[in-house]
């Protein structure tokens, strides 16, 4: 009994080599499969970069709003900082217009309050707030690929 | 027995299949253009005086004719039906075989220009309905253009003077109307102009879906839209605040102009002009006024209440105004605009006027400033009582200027420029009023407020922007 058990515990060279080759085959197949699947994810985009410079702090005097049409962005400058609200309607991507009470989309009637929260229409999500940061050369930059929680303001004078 | 059933189905479907295959084949082999090409051939053979021509006509192949325009990225197949377009023998023929009118083709040979670059239409199509883009179901945004607007295509390559010299002045007239009717007061072109209306830069190339077509009479295409929009903007766009007054024949001229504002540039060897044909900024005060101000302010001598704006448009070339307002104040108003009203900001970063141009504008506006200066108002000598001013404002001013100074019959007082104005200017205006406008004189010579009253009101007015 103990002999059998002892034999069972030991693995023959043949079995070992067999297992090793199987293991190698499996691992290499998995690696290839992973590579194939990874290949589908694009490394570059054939679109405008999501990060762009918007100007210096002086270009945004306190109490003003600037609409950057081509970027689909509103830059608000208040006394407690700057913030960027996306002008791209979350329904189908039209550029919204600013109104007294917030934003209105001309395409299918979605409405948002002044903080970008959906109050009417087919829009499924609130307007994105985007990150404003200052680059090393002292210029303000926005990254529309980075959304920040509503209410986040960039303090000009930290 | 069931096989008989299937055999019958096979047989009948086979028959139907055969019939429709034959009909489809027949349809493929008899497209519309074939009959026109046959007619063309026949006519040439009949009327040819030269045997060689007759022989050539006899040998004409019946096939799709197309003009391949690599440089323009177009293929025009109009000549499949309009096969006689370049043939003098077809001078008296019926359309579509008729020769092209005039001698346009001499300088615009079809094999270099094609047809759609001037006439629009769907060049790739091979049947009339889709080639001409007739009907909503062809889903073609630029049907063949009515000939009255054809000159809108000329300025892709030519300038107004050259066209005018040859007698093609529709487009030049349209451009002139554009510069003199104050359109740019609300509409930007090349980045310069007001922000109330839509940008006009490529309006001539916008598809049908860009425009609200609901109330267009007749064919729902961009040509009719523009003409009817110039005739009365609010018929097509009920919420429009556009101010325009033109004669009926001028709507066609303006439509021609606006349809010439297209996207894309013609290749260099097609263009006779550098860059794109465009209307620049005038260099002179009156011309600037006509381009940017006249639509709303008209001659500027009187103010008037505009029903559409729901606001009084101030008189800016008004003697009483010019008497009290100094150049600095007027310049600030022009540069910054009046936030909360339809008055645009015209500085370079906004409306696009350079400082020199604004100065010229001011010189023009203030041309007839009366030399006599008004009696001074020593506002600095008063201690302002805002509370009292508020009471007076509520009684005397709120009716026209609004409870919060937002303006309606009276002008908006909350905007940054008026708020930053010299207090004396405000006091003088209150005291002496403004002739030829509804603003009465509130001073001793008018309604009878004392100088202290006026000083208090002015101090209150200066707080209006802080009130929500």
């Amino acid at each position, binding site marked *: 009994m103990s002999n059998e058990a002892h034999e069972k515990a030991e693995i023959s060279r043949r079995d070992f080599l067999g297992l090793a080759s199987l293991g190698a085959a499996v691992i290499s197949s998995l690696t290839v499969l992973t590579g194939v699947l990874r290949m589908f994810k694009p490394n570059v985009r054939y679109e405008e970069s999501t990060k762009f410079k918007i100007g210096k702090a002086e270009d945004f005097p306190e109490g003003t709003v600037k609409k950057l049409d081509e970027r689909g962005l509103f830059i608000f400058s208040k006394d407690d900082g700057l913030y960027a609200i996306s002008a791209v309607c979350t329904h189908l991507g039209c550029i919204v217009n600013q109104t007294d009470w917030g934003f209105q989309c001309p395409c299918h009637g979605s409405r948002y309050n002044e903080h970008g929260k959906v109050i009417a229409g*087919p829009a499924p*999500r609130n307007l994105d707030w985007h990150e404003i940061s200052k680059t090393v050369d002292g210029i303000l930059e926005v990254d529309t690929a980075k959304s920040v929680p509503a209410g986040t303001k960039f303090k000009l004078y930290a | 027995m069931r*096989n008989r059933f299937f055999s019958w*189905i096979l047989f009948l*479907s086979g028959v139907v299949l055969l019939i429709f295959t034959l009909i489809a084949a027949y349809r493929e082999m008899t497209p519309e253009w074939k009959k026109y090409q046959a007619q063309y051939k026949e006519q040439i053979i009949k009327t040819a005086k030269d045997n060689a021509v007759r022989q050539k006509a006899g040998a004409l192949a019946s096939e799709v004719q197309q003009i391949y325009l690599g440089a323009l990225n177009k293929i025009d197949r109009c000549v499949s039906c309009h096969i006689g377009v370049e043939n003098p023998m077809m001078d008296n023929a019926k359309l579509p075989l008729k020769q092209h009118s005039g001698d346009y083709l001499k300088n615009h040979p079809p094999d270099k220009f094609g047809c759609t670059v001037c006439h629009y239409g769907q060049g790739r199509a091979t049947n009339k309905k889709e080639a001409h883009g007739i009907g909503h179901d062809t889903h073609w*945004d630029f049907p063949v253009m009515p000939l009255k607007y054809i000159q809108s295509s000329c300025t892709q390559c030519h300038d107004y003077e050259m066209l005018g010299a040859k007698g093609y002045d529709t487009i030049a007239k349209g451009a002139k109307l554009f510069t003199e009717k104050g359109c740019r007061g609300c509409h930007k072109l090349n980045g310069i102009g007001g922000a109330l209306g839509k940008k006009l830069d490529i309006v001539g190339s916008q598809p049908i*879906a860009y425009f609200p077509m609901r109330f267009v009479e007749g064919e729902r295409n961009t040509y009719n839209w523009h003409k009817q929009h110039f005739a009365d903007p609010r018929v097509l766009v009920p919420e429009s605040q556009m101010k325009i007054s033109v004669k009926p024949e001028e709507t066609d001229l303006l439509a021609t102009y606006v349809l010439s504002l297209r996207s894309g540039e013609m290749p260099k060897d097609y263009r006779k002009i550098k860059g794109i044909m465009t209307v620049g900024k005038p260099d002179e005060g009156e011309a600037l006024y006509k381009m940017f101000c006249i639509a709303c302010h008209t001659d500027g001598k009187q103010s008037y209440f505009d029903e559409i704006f729901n606001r009084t448009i101030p008189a800016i070339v008004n003697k009483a105004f010019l008497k009290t307002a100094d150049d600095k104040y007027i310049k600030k108003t022009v540069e910054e605009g009046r936030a909360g009203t339809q008055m645009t900001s015209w500085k370079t970063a906004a409306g696009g006027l350079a400082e020199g141009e604004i100065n010229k504008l001011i010189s023009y506006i203030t041309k007839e400033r009366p030399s006599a200066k008004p009696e001074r108002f020593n506002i600095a000598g008063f201690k302002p009582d805002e509370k009292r001013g508020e009471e007076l404002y509520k009684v005397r001013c709120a009716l026209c200027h609004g409870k919060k100074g937002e303006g309606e019959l009276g002008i908006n007082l909350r905007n940054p420029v008026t708020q930053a104005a010299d207090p004396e200017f405000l006091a003088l205006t209150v005291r002496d009023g403004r002739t030829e406008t509804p603003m009465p004189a509130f001073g001793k010579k008018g309604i009878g407020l004392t100088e202290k009253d006026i000083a208090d009101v002015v101090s209150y007015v200066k707080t209006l922007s802080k009130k929500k």
Partner: protein
Amino acid sequence: MSELKQSGIDSFKHNIKSAFKSFASSFLRSGKPTSDRSRAAAVFNNFFLHVQGVKTHINTLRPAYTLGLGLISFFLLIITIISGVLLMVYYSPSIEHAYNSVKDINFVVFAGRLIRNMHKWAGEGMIIFVLLHMARVFYTSSYKNGRQFNWVIGLALLILTFGINLSGYMLPWDQLSYWALVIVANIIQSPKELTDSLGITGFFDIGGFSKELFLGGLTAGKESLTRVYLLHIMLLPIFLFIFLGVHFWRIRKDGGLTKPDVFEPKAIDAALIALPEKKGGIFPANKTYGLMELAHGKTPVVDRDVENTVLSWPNLLIAEAALFVLCLAGVIVYSFFIDAPLKELANPMIPENPAKAPWYFLGLQELLSYSAFMGGVGLPGLALLGLGLIPYLDREEQHLGIWFSNKQGKRVAIESLIASALVIIGLLAFVINFGWFRSWWPNVPQLLITLINPGNIWVGFMILWSVYVIKKTGSTRMGAIALFTMFLISYLIYTYVGTELRGPNWDFFWSRSEWPIH
């Protein structure tokens, strides 16, 4: 020596004279199908035909049993593939050229318009017939008795059919294509609704990731067209062929099509059941041996003849030929009169309003309007799971091969039809008139809407009703009939609503003529 030479030339001459005949007989080995044996061999020895049995049961040939739906689906596929390959000669899959290449197919390619129409209508017809085929298989209990796996394969084929249709819809790059692409990309992103509510999007944005993988970027553009083209002509068809091969092979392995346990041949079949010619031999006339003969059960049974079967050549083949020509005639006639739509060139600046997915996805888009996650991922996933589980949750072996199983089945189907129609229309009427949570409480959290919305309520009802039927009738088959019938009805009604009753802004209109013109 000379004798040999003579015979050499002679035999050569003889070979030339009989070259054609010997060439033909090298691949038509069985000769003319004039005897039962040669008819059998015609099927058995043929690469294309031998996936079918040499003998076919009469029940299989009855039009009223199968309505030929599976075959029609397959024939529509053939027509779609051939017309598709023809279109590939002229179509150009780049966003600069795609639209114009399709226009030129319509205008200047010989028979281009007809072929494009055939491709579109055969392709979309496939969806209808594949759904009908699934219904036939279900209602005749043909997912039992070993056929469970083939049912699942069929579901995979259903998904692939939808996928191939959808990817094809996006190729012309007109306004319909572009905005359908945007909508579908947003549907793919719908898990974001759930991850947002749970606050985990930051590190697990499966929605955004899938969308980027599909579009080849963040916005619909040239990369998207390339990927969609790849899916349409290569990736999805490859899987389709593989699964189709398995699907057909499994039919044979599972014993051909289902038939009722008690089968009575009708008068009309009498002529077909001819006794096989058997001359001589030591065995009685009706006995045959052979692996390709399937008796009652899956292995050949000695001493039993194969009852109620007929030779596939010509009986099955003629039925198939008739159906194919009927299909082709139908497609050609329809394509002759009705053009496949093509709108203006894709314009990212001007959205279609309403922006709609192709019709077969509009039922899903209606559910999507209630909740992005539920309409895009949750409910369709649940539906597919439910359909896939049917053969495993209902294992009753009675009433195979009979439509609706029995009278009770018919009643259950009708009752479920009525109940589901009432409930769905009721839910729709409610939502259209009164709105839902956000219309009454603007600050309601999204998660609540995701969990409780008309789509979920409908699916909940479906499940509850089916369980109720199981309890009342004591039969899982009846429950399955209830569930499947309700699924069919809801697909029909929601698709109708999405196509005809939803206009600009996804607002409700009784008809298209009421849509406000922009």
